[in-house]
């Protein structure tokens, strides 16, 4: 009787895991299209997990930055900017605001 339920639960679990894996992948792959002021996440550019860690830790700072039009500019965000600009060529020409929004969207 209950086996369909179990199967469904297991299925959901698998899906959830896949989704999780997808997010992890996305955070380590960043591309910025500066000209269009849009940000895409593709698997073209890969940065190491450590770098994405410095970017992930800048999430809260990025939120403050975006919300205040750049008034609050914390060190963690500054570090993330540096990392992105060194590692991702497309990010070099992007504005701070664009980058902050990209980090926030991660």
């Amino acid at each position, binding site marked *: 009787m209950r086996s369909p339920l179990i199967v469904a639960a297991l299925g959901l679990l698998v899906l959830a895991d896949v989704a999780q894996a997808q997010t992890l992948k996305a955070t380590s792959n960043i591309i910025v299209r500066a000209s269009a002021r849009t940000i895409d996440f593709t698997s073209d550019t890969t940065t190491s997990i450590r770098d994405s860690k410095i970017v992930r830790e800048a999430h809260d700072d990025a939120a403050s930055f975006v919300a205040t*039009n750049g008034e609050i500019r914390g060190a*963690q965000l500054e570090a993330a900017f540096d990392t992105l600009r060194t590692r991702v060529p497309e990010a070099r020409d992007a504005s701070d605001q664009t980058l902050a929004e990209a980090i926030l969207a991660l």
Partner: protein
Amino acid sequence: MLCADAAQASLQLRLKTDGLSPAEQQASQALLDEALGALPPRFIEQLDRRIDVGWTDKMPENAYGQASLVSELDLNRNLLASLTDGSAATQKTNRPHGTVRREMLATVLHELTHIYDRARLWSKDERALIQRCSRQNNITGLIGLPDQCRGQNDRRFTLSDDPRLLDLAGWPQYVGRRGEREQHNNQVARSPDIYETTSPLEFVAVNMEYFLLDPSYACRRPALARYYKEHFGWAPPGEDACGKTYAFLNAGNDFAKTPLGQIDPERVYEIDYLLAEANQNLVSRWGHSMLRLVICAPGRPRGPDCRLDLDQHLVLSYRAFVGDVQLSSWDGLVGKYPSRLFVLPLAQVIDEYTKTELRGLASVPLKLNRQEINDTVEHAAEMHWSYDGNYFFISNNCAVESLKLLRSGSANPQLTGLDNITPNGLLEVLSARGLADTSVLNDKREALRLGYHFDSFRERYQAMLMCCANVCRSSRPRSKTGCRWMHRNAVNGSARPTCAPAPPCCCWNKPAIANS
């Protein structure tokens, strides 16, 4: 041979041969020769006397040996048989020296060190300093004593009351008692021989054993090994090559990281005094002091750029180890909580203070030279593994512990006479003595951007809520346009946040209410 040596002034060990068979004499003499061969030249030259060595049965069964005050050394006769027939060289003990014979050799060196220590064999400069400081002390008393003289007046031992040795050994200065030393040594974890912590006299002798006999001593206790080497102007032959990094136990909450981290002192650009600003809780009213290691990312040369390698930075924090859900003020006052040196990733410390506890962090670079930075990191690694102290909220809190770590580690003379029991007070004193550069905090925006200040999220939240309140109170149509909350409350310090109606909305909307 011994007679030939006697012509030059130097130490001689003379075996008391009464009642010893030729084989026993030979084995004993070999032991003494080996001991003499292991000693530093300065030791032998300075300790210019003849010491009589004999075997006695007037000794507790498990003892190895004992030195009289001046010139006599007794060894336990129980051990003579095994020394003579050679079995002592293979018989294992449970101690780090390994075999019984090795233990006997260590005993001879240990007891000779006691005699050396008592002989007041200071160098010329040291003797002059001690005399000057003692004279000064007689005239002005402790209060008028210059920092340089602290702990140098009325010294009685060659090594074991040297302030620098006491700092390294684990008898640091009591806070606020003009150089008086703490009674108990808390560097007890991972001691090769816990007997060393009974008194500085024993500490000097026990460590001399390992300095001379253990090739890895310089890797285990680098600062002390350096101290002995400097004192004797000599290094024992055959020392192990040590690793360039120091291991530490990663106390971060990121469990994907390896539990054992490594610090390479060559990659440490600066050491910051990291102060968590105070709040109204009893235990955090004066802030919390920590040290931040500004570590460069691998491959980046040391320089100001390293300040933004935030994922590499580590924080050294003495914390009361509270194994309970409730913090007892009484236990804190009487020192019931253990105090340990934790090594944490910076990002976690920022999160804990600015987001969870809503306290800001000030990170002020200390003006230390390269050698002082290396030595402080090295000492921190030693303390991390060996220190198990007691946390007293007042007399041995984080500020006192951090100061002791800095003082023992860097040996900066400016720190010798520095006393403070509050974390924020310590920053002021460091700054007043020119050891900390608080000017980095002057420009708030830059301080925030470059990581000299991590602001509390209290202000950010506050600004956001004020903004929302304003929007809700205002007569503007409460549509989907909210506000860009904020404005400079946190940054420029203006009294009220101002809001500008602009998408995207950052305040929450409640359409139900808005439409009603």
